[in-house]
């Protein structure tokens, strides 16, 4: 079954690139023999993944050669630009302390983005979880605030950009504000539905075991019971907030997103793509780390 799937997948990638399918066919054949002798599904999967990636790069390379470097930079050019940006020396001034630090250009841009990503994500998430838990727990609060949240929630975070600019300016605070709004709603919704879904049984058991105040009930029963949903919210916002960071920086706040558009305006498309890959790398690392934390915290889950 999977053998067939693999063939179809690679075939799909090679469609339109004459002359390469023979090579890929041979590569695929080799991969198959290796996987079969190894007898490992995981190894076979890895092999196909490598093949798929190689196929993608080949198609990219050929397409870039066909249309020219401005419209589509080649993977080789992007790799070159990535290394240059990663190693080119630059200095970074700590915003509050005013101390100048030596770094590389890519690192400086990344740190600049983190300067609004991290505070926005933290403040937005904490507020989102707090309001979500409070509304999920208190019927009165739920009734009072549901109309407001229903109206505000569908508004995309970027729609607030004008207010971010006139209230806070085109800077870290403005971008952090936008990121925070995004993080708030994701975490609000997950915390709220998590709290609503806490089984009545557990609250009744706790009451029969002597829990007689709301604070203890929330702390010892509701929060742990809702934690899978809350952690999912946090993980979702870790990813979504990178999308928002880039969008917010397109309006001028410094960082990776700004660098993507800035390089493109100077027709350095290879640099632009290199910074796109930075976003991807940072997301993969942070998501991977958080998944680990999540797995440990939710070890009890069936």
């Amino acid at each position, binding site marked *: 079954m999977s053998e067939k799937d693999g063939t179809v997948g690679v075939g799909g990638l090679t469609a339109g690139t004459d002359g390469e399918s023979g090579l890929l066919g041979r590569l695929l054949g080799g991969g198959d023999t290796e996987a079969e002798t190894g007898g490992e599904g995981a190894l076979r999967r890895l092999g196909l993944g490598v093949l798929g990636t190689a196929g993608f790069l080949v198609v990219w390379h050929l397409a870039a050669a066909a249309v020219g470097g401005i419209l589509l930079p080649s993977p080789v050019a992007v790799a070159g630009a990535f290394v240059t940006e990663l190693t080119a020396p630059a200095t970074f001034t700590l915003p509050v302390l005013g101390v100048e630090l030596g770094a590389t250009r890519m690192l400086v841009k990344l740190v600049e983005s983190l300067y609004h990503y991290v505070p926005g994500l933290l403040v937005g998430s904490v507020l989102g979880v707090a309001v979500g838990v409070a509304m999920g727990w208190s019927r009165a609060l739920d009734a009072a605030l549901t109309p407001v949240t229903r109206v505000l929630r569908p508004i995309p975070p970027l729609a607030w950009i004008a207010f971010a600019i006139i209230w806070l300016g085109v800077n870290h605070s403005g971008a952090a504000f936008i990121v925070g709004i995004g993080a708030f709603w994701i975490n609000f919704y997950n915390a709220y539905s998590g709290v609503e879904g806490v*089984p009545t*049984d*557990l609250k*009744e*058991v*706790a*009451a*029969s*075991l*002597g*829990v007689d105040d709301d604070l*203890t009930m929330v702390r*010892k*029963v509701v929060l*742990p*019971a809702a*934690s899978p949903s809350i952690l999912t919210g946090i993980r979702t916002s870790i990813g979504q907030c990178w999308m928002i960071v880039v969008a917010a920086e397109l309006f001028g706040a410094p960082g990776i997103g700004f660098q993507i558009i800035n390089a493109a305006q100077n027709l350095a498309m290879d640099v632009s793509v290199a910074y796109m890959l930075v976003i991807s790398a940072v997301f993969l690392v942070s998501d991977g780390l958080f998944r680990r934390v999540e797995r440990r915290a939710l*070890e*009890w*889950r*069936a």
Partner: protein
Amino acid sequence: MAGVNDVREEGSTADTASDTSGTSDTAAVRVADLGKRYDSDRQTVQALSGVDFAVDEGEFVCIVGPSGCGKTTLFRTIAGLESPTSGEVRLSGERVDGPGTDRGMVFQEYGLFPWRTVAENVAFGLEQQGLGGEERRARVREMLDLVGLTEFADAYPKELSGGMKQRVGIARALAVDPDILLMDEPFGSVDAQTRDMLHGELLDIWGATGKTVLFVTHDVEEAVTLADRVVVMAANPGQVREVVSVDLDRPRERTDAAFAEHVERIRALIGE
């Protein structure tokens, strides 16, 4: 008074207080003329009507009846999770107006905290009482020993079988030393073999702790296996049809003629 007919005749202990004639104000559980009505826009449901019986201290009483007879409503009212529309429940003379640690509850679906280990589940009520570290650990050990789960102290509920989960539920309920153990179809989700084993264990625990036990079930054989007395309920509206005493020596054998007689009698009352 809903046809209460205590058939217990000869020489068992402390029978007088279980009479429902009003002299039982200090009974462990006194359910007095209890009624519960659910009103909705379209209809009114009389879940309980004139339910009246008493349970002695240290007594094991089962409540049986067909589905819809209000036995779960009765259980929840005694637990303090629902309030009656008429009548009242008194525990040792004190009126019930909410859940409390004087009643340990055991549910059919266990109600274990999945994020807590077995030991942490048992410790939950002790934490609320403010019992300190070493004392608490000792009490948890004692309870786990009682239900035979000492070596599973650090396991999470997901790692346990249904029977083991319910042992944890019982240990957790008993840890805070309640006067009464309230059990709602506690063995309804385990297989027959495990259920038989748990019956024996529960009776051992009951013997060792001397707790008053109120046990809801739809299984007549289970009721006759366990109970000193069986409160037989009928539906529409939920009411007590009769209270049947089971004066048989324990452990009881299902193949025993007297056992079968009791089962037959109760089944006839229910109309099975």
